[in-house]
């Protein structure tokens, strides 16, 4: 029941926001709903409820292992949102606030979905809810990005529906009674028709992989993240991609039960390495620091996919990486949003010397960059280390070498752009523009908090979190 509240509450908040009249006070709904959601999530995290086996929706171990990270990220972004929307008070924010809250509810539904069609419906709804958020800035570039997002994302969700149909037919062919909960599908196991399972796996991996932003289905990402407000980018990169990743994990468990786990793991490994490679190459070429974050996100989705391919230890490490990546990337998106606003451009060609104009945001941006490129003692270092250890333990030497090589190139690419905009002497036009942006506590503390959380995760990974990842692995690989 309480798990349903996680969905109903933000949706009720969204309805309230749609009816709220005052443009100035409306943004406060974001942190209020976010805080209640966070408290409820952590209450459920500490006291995990018993989920009925055949429940369509529930706070099961997998949801428990990742949903708190999303809720935490949303809460911090919501606090930032209040300050952000005060700066952007010239624009009506009814649609923006309403859809952000709706997204929180739908993300909670997606993480907790234990049924094939429910999962799809939640992912589809999240995709659509993000559309008006992307063109909040109302520029032609933003509409171009939205169109591409819809075209690529729409095709992705269409293919994941086709994949769901194929999985449904695999169950029907194997004599299933039409129960499409993941538990029932896993229980049917070897009874599922293999050709159909494999067809379903390819389609679902492409479909949900598009949402996740795995290469080569990542093409919407740079445009969308480049043009959307920082807060939207943070939630897309930390929340929506996570839903798609848990979807892939749930489907992977069914494919594994059907006896095709080896093929599934191999495809995950290849697509993960390919994503890392593509991201590293584009990171070396991009000149826009918001698009840079998108390629960094593609890289980290590749890392998650590789983790998922490495069996139990790898999946646990990948779940750890979901936390560290969501929080660190959130900090980067928010500080990049500050710099973008002060500089009036996101291109390296126009922006220089931001350490003079926005010293705090620039410091956060540089520290966040080191955190996300896996410098100890921040969280991503430890989660990536675990993935490397899982890869070496399972004998993937060549893949590990490639993994580390891509990380190195990504580091070169990121430092090139970040120091390009932070160092040097600012341009006159930038100085004039940056006078209108004040680094208030409201826009500095949220990214700082996220960075602090990333550091805390790295230094003192709490045992209760480790247990939640182990429990999720036990749910996904029941026999081991």
């Amino acid at each position: 029941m309480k798990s349903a509240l996680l969905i109903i509450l933000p949706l009720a908040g969204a309805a309230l926001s749609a009816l709220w009249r005052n443009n100035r006070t409306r943004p406060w709904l974001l942190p209020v709903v976010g805080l209640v959601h966070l408290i409820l999530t952590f209450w459920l995290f500490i006291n995990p409820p018993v989920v009925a086996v055949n429940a369509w929706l529930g706070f099961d171990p997998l949801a428990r292992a990742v949903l708190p990270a999303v809720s935490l990220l949303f809460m911090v972004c919501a606090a930032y949102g209040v300050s952000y929307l005060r700066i952007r008070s010239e624009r009506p924010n009814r649609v923006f606030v309403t859809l952000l809250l709706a997204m929180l509810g739908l993300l909670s539904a997606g993480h907790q979905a234990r049924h094939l069609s429910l999962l799809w419906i939640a992912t589809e709804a999240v995709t659509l809810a993000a559309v008006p958020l992307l063109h909040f800035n109302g520029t032609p570039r933003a509409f171009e990005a939205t169109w591409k997002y819809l075209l690529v994302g729409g095709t992705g969700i269409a293919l994941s529906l086709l994949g769901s149909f194929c999985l449904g037919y695999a169950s029907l062919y194997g004599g299933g009674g039409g129960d499409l909960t993941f538990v029932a599908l896993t229980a049917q196991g070897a009874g599922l028709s293999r050709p159909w399972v494999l067809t379903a796996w390819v389609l679902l991996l492409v479909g949900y992989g598009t949402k996740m932003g795995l290469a080569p289905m990542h093409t919407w990402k740079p445009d969308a993240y480049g043009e959307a407000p920082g807060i939207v980018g943070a939630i897309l990169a930390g929340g929506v991609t996570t839903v798609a990743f848990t979807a892939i994990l749930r489907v992977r468990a069914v494919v594994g039960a059907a006896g095709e786990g080896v093929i599934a793991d191999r495809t995950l490994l290849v697509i993960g390495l390919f994503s890392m490679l593509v991201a590293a190459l584009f990171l070396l070429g991009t000149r826009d620091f918001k698009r840079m974050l998108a390629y960094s996100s593609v890289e980290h989705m590749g890392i998650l996919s590789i983790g998922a391919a490495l069996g139990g230890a790898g999946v646990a490490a990948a779940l750890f990486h979901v936390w560290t990546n969501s929080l660190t990337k959130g900090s980067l998106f928010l500080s990049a949003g500050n710099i973008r606003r002060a500089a009036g451009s996101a291109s390296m060609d126009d922006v220089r010397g931001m350490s003079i104009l926005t010293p705090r945001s620039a410091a956060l941006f540089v520290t966040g960059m080191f955190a996300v490129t896996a410098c100890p003692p921040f969280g991503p270092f430890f989660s990536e280390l675990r993935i490397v250890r899982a890869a070496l333990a399972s004998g993937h030497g060549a893949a590990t070498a490639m993994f580390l090589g891509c990380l190195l190139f990504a580091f070169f690419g990121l430092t090139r752009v970040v120091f390009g905009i932070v160092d040097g002497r600012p341009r006159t036009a930038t100085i004039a523009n940056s006078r209108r942006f004040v680094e208030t506590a409201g826009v500095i503390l949220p990214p700082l908090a996220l960075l602090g959380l990333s550091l805390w995760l790295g230094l003192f990974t709490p045992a209760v979190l480790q247990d939640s990842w182990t429990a999720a692995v036990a749910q996904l690989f029941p026999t081991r």
Partner: protein
Amino acid sequence: MSGTLNLLIGLAMGLNLLALGSSRLPSLIRAMSMQGVVLGFMPLLLEHERFDWRVILIALATMGGKGVLIPGLLRRAMRAANIEREIQPFIGYIPSLLLGAGGTIMAVALARALPLLPEHTGSLLVPGAIASVLTGFILLIGRAKAISQVCGYLILENGIYLFGMLLIHSTPLLVESGILLDVTVGVFVIGIIVDRIQRAFDSLDTRKLTTLHE
């Protein structure tokens, strides 16, 4: 009964080729809406043992949505943008047709490789579905105008719907959720094309959407 169904699927596959070959937007929209109506009849033909109100609902929603509502919206968008024909597609009409025909043959061959339940053998549902998905992709990739791309997306979606017919009796919910895909198209059309792209770029030609790149 299976004969009538196969006739309808054959008709839908023919409409795929018509859509690929049409150079004018109104005829593309017409082909697509006719396909929507044809698809709407299928659940009624599949109806066997007992009367299921949900199946009737799916049929009505399909005919209304794919056959009337969305084509209407697209026609409105077309008038608002003042465009009648597609000039210079990325993939020409003859190559598109050849690709579509080749894809249809491939779909029939591919469908043979997948095992089917006895009640579905001899039905054209799977090849029809694959052929429509391929047609949708060709239109999505090969057309420059936003409205043509939406038509491509709808045909892709029709293919998925055709596949859903296999499951309509065992898991109606899964198939019903597919109707939500139509909502996506609604967002495409209303939210983006008519108002936004048109206003911002003064055109619906997606070739103008090239600011964002590396």
